């Protein structure tokens, strides 16, 4: 069967070939496709949130956030998405086994739904990144309001989006449904072109 071994296709494949970049190319915004993230929805079972928190803390050394926050330890992060609901994100791990590894570790305190393939994630940074996101995102990203570790479920240019801030540069990761990667890339392109766009891993 080895001749049939399937390789995953990036959701952004064919969508980041921006052409006609402005003179300022490279200056404003830097993009990096995050195809190396494994993801799963983790939802506490009825009345088991405390047990889940305990499990997560003991297993991963992560205190589950109580709100829309991202808490990370090593390559793993938990992002609050709703009461008792989280998106677990692992960088660099085996996406095909992530959900079952989580399930094994967290036991019956949580239900887990594999989402590794469902999202397309872009890391965006650069001096003009806030200006670019302001063209589609109705959330205040000013450093006095939205800080590293903050997360938000919202929409960008009519595309449902999950966004979290990694550092103060600032760097954000934005996750959209996989099928919308092309439209999302178009938004980034049309909004960032005047400042210039660099793609780290085209």
């Amino acid at each position, binding site marked *: 069967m080895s001749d049939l071994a399937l390789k995953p296709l990036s959701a952004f494949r064919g969508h980041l070939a921006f052409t006609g970049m402005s003179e300022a190319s490279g200056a404003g915004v830097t993009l990096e496709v995050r195809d190396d993230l494994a993801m799963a929805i983790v939802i506490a079972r009825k009345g088991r949130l405390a047990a889940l928190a305990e499990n997560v803390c003991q297993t991963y050394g992560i205190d589950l956030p109580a709100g829309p926050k991202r808490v990370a330890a090593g390559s793993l992060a938990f992002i609050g998405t709703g009461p008792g609901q989280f998106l677990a994100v692992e960088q660099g791990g085996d996406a095909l086994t992530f959900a079952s590894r989580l399930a094994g570790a967290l036991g019956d305190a949580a239900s887990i739904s594999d989402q590794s*393939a469902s999202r397309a994630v872009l890391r965006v940074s650069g001096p003009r990144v806030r200006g670019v996101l302001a063209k589609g995102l109705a959330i205040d990203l000013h450093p006095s309001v939205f800080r590293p570790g903050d997360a938000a479920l919202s929409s960008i240019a009519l595309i449902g989006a999950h966004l979290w801030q990694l550092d103060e540069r600032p760097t954000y990761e934005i996750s959209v449904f*996989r099928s919308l990667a092309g439209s999302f890339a178009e938004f980034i392109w049309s909004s960032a072109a005047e400042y210039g766009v660099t793609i780290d891993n085209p």
Partner: protein
Amino acid sequence: MAAQSQPARLQSGGLIDRARPLEFQFDGRKMTGYAGDTLASALVANGVTLTGRSFKYHRPRGVLTAGSEEPNALVELRGGSRREPNTKATTVELFAGLEARSQNRWPSLTFDALSVNSLFAPLLVAGFYYKTFMWPAAFWEKLYEPLIRKAAGLGRASGLPDPDTYEKAFAFCDVLVIGGGPTGLMAALTACRAGARVILCDEDFGFGGRLLSETFEIAGISGASWVGETVAELAESANVTLMRRTTVFGVYDTGTYGALERVGDHLPTHVPHQPRQRLWKIVAKRAVLAAGAIERPIVFGGNDRPGAVMAAAVRSYVNRYAAVPGRRIAVFTNNDDGWKTVADCAAAGIPVEAVIDPRANLPEGLRNLADRAGATLFAGGRVLDAYGVSSGLQAIDVETAGGSIVTLNADCLAMSGGWNPALALTTHLGSRPVWRPDIHAFVASAPPPGLEVAGAANGSLALAACLAEGAAEGAKAAEAAGFSASMPAIPAVGADPTGMMPLWKVERSRTKAFVDFQNDVTAKDIAISESEGYRSVEHLKRYTALGMATDQGKTANVNALAIMAALTGKSIPETGVTTFRPPYTPVAIAAFAGHHRGKHFRPTRLTPSHLWAAEQGAPFVETGQWLRAQWYPRPGETDWLVSVSREVNATRSGVGVCDVSTLGKIDIMGADAGAFLDRVYINTFSTLAIGKVRYGVMLREDGIVMDDGTTARLADHHYYMSTTTVNAAKVMQHLEFCHQVLWPELDVQLASATEQWAQFAIAGPNARDTLRGLIDPEFDISNEALPYMGATTLTICGGLPARLFRISFSGELAYEIAVPAGYGDGLIRAIMSVGAPFGVTPYGTEALGVMRIEKGHAAGNELNGTITAADLGLGRMMSTKKDYIGRVMAERPGLADPERPRLVGFKPVDRAQRLRAGAHFLPLGAKAVAANDEGFMTSVAFSPSLNHWIGLGYLKNGASRLGERVRAHDPVRGLEFEVEICDPIFIDPKGERLRV
């Protein structure tokens, strides 16, 4: 040299950049202006007085104001696809190569054929259209309306697609300051120093407001210098965003403001990747409205003659632009502010012929000013009429205090009837202004929450009051946003007297006296409106079109109210108030659309096999946001029906594959998942065995079918639901509602998995053999191990996790196989590879549709929001042993009526006849009237299996009428044919093919 070409430009002064001359054209005439000019000021400097013709009477008109309230000087800007009609010359920033044309004139501006309308003016008064063009009614569409449309209107749209791009953006701040004049600058400065995040917007390309146009000194320096210093401090502050060329045009709920930034309108050419305009949604904790005030004209005969200019606008042209609107100026003012024009013109060396002030007793200082300017003073006088030719004013008749009439020569009449606070934004959420008798103007009563009004916009017209109020409101706003603010020192300014005596309309004028310049409404029209009983402001507005032009009557409304008040003997506040709606000034629809136009109107979702399908040359169809392959044409196939029929035949005889990833998929987990499903589906799922799939129907609360689909039980506490493509989000929302609101006590966890799984239907007699090539050898998918309606998880292609369901929409032996979506592209290629020996054929949505119609499966056309489970023939699925959403309401007599239309199949009696969806069913021989309607055709397809067209539809008592004939009546296409009623399952009614 440049000065020579600009005969009305002062030799020095002004805030223009004489080092940067700019060539431009008006009506084909080449002229020169300077950077810092508006089109209007450049026209004034070039001695152009006539800029256009009026809307109704085609009267010659010139520049009236120097701001965005301009009703007269509307021009067509640019050309080709960028041609923009009705642009206010007073707000157009001059750029090199600008081309503008006057509007509403033919054949030329100075000789306009339709100005004969003026001769018929007695016929064209208010209500003329209503009275004259009423009948015969048939003439309206064919004759009257085209004629009126040709005669009226301003400018011409380009009629071409807009080549520019537009953008929408969001901004947030603690304090939004609207208006960058003295008030706004003080407010912004105070809030900025308190540390608040400030956004300061001004519609002009320069901050400063009236300070740019007046000769004020502030703290010992010129107003313009003070503006420069203040703006410099704001610009250096990281917490301040300065937005020039940005009009805050609307106030919306909870501190949200709409603003339009003109990013590129002042540039000669389009900057790549930059939008022409940007529409901002600004969310502000607090806002200060410092929009200033708008000077109102005085209503007298010929007050619209080119050369009759607002007094403050004259100062703008003289002081800011060093452009002189006349050689012999007369000033007609009822207030102290208007006298600044006398002083400034005199200082600039422009002869002031006369000053006419209706106030009989003028202060000594003003009398001396008239003397110094060498102007004849008519204290207690009035201008009765202004005369001239189309190119401008030549003389005015003045009625003196003693009642005699004196004719004076003047080519420019500066007029001021006082000031109206620019309170439009305060009324956007419904509050009505109140009359302030001490300043004879309306002010805001209850501004929108979070917004305070300051300075001239608040009726505080003197400069000192503007500065103080701006600072106070800026501090208040910052405090309210959580900052600690202290009042700055208020810079010292000189006296700025604001005395006035109201004068709305001059009696005994002999010629036409205009109230609304843009819509050509005269004082006489208001009198007619009153005499015909249209006395309420709202009636007045609609009867005369007063205030209904694009300027919303900024210079007209208060004068009109005052005139109506005088006619009815009431006070102005008793007469009524006028309110304004967003936008404050017109906003292009394109700006509201932003990037979302054309194919970017809404986001597009691509399926996991999209890239591969595109390689196959498949045409795509939009299903909601999704693009799905419609069919896969083979070389030589030019007709879609040929391709689709081939795909159906290939599937039914061999094996076909279709991307069905767009169907909604939901993981339903937890100990109570089964119980939860029992409550949302009409049938039972808690009893479903692990490894089995069941078809389910869910109802809305009102008993109507919401959606259908299959749900598999993958583990004890894990179900996997599928929904229709179109209802995926709605069903997820419904389930979340049911869980969070109705039954929070259940141990249920929901997660959308639609995007996680690439899912392909593999259908046809060779489906299993094809699959066998993919499934890892340790898994048994024989008919015994995985029978019809079985489900399992396994691995394929050497260890890739997959979910496999033996379900069928096509009616054939069929499976749906799901892998993580990233592997979808690889999987479709693998299926095509392992299926090649079996002739595997990809099929698109059309073949999918044909096969489901052949099998009588309901889809979107059938689930149309009016249908019950019983209508679909699924009445027996409705469990009587449990409760579920919609059960009670589905028992209502109307929904339970056995005579309701039922889903049945149809065949054309003439088998060659093509069927048409939407056709209505009538008994044979019955008249085609609604009373005889028995139902309608929902879906049709050409069945390659039966070699004729087939249809599904709802027919009254349908299930008991199999074999009968009815007429299918299609008035839309003008078709009528007989059809035979049959079972909706056309192929393999016993379902034997499913189970092999």
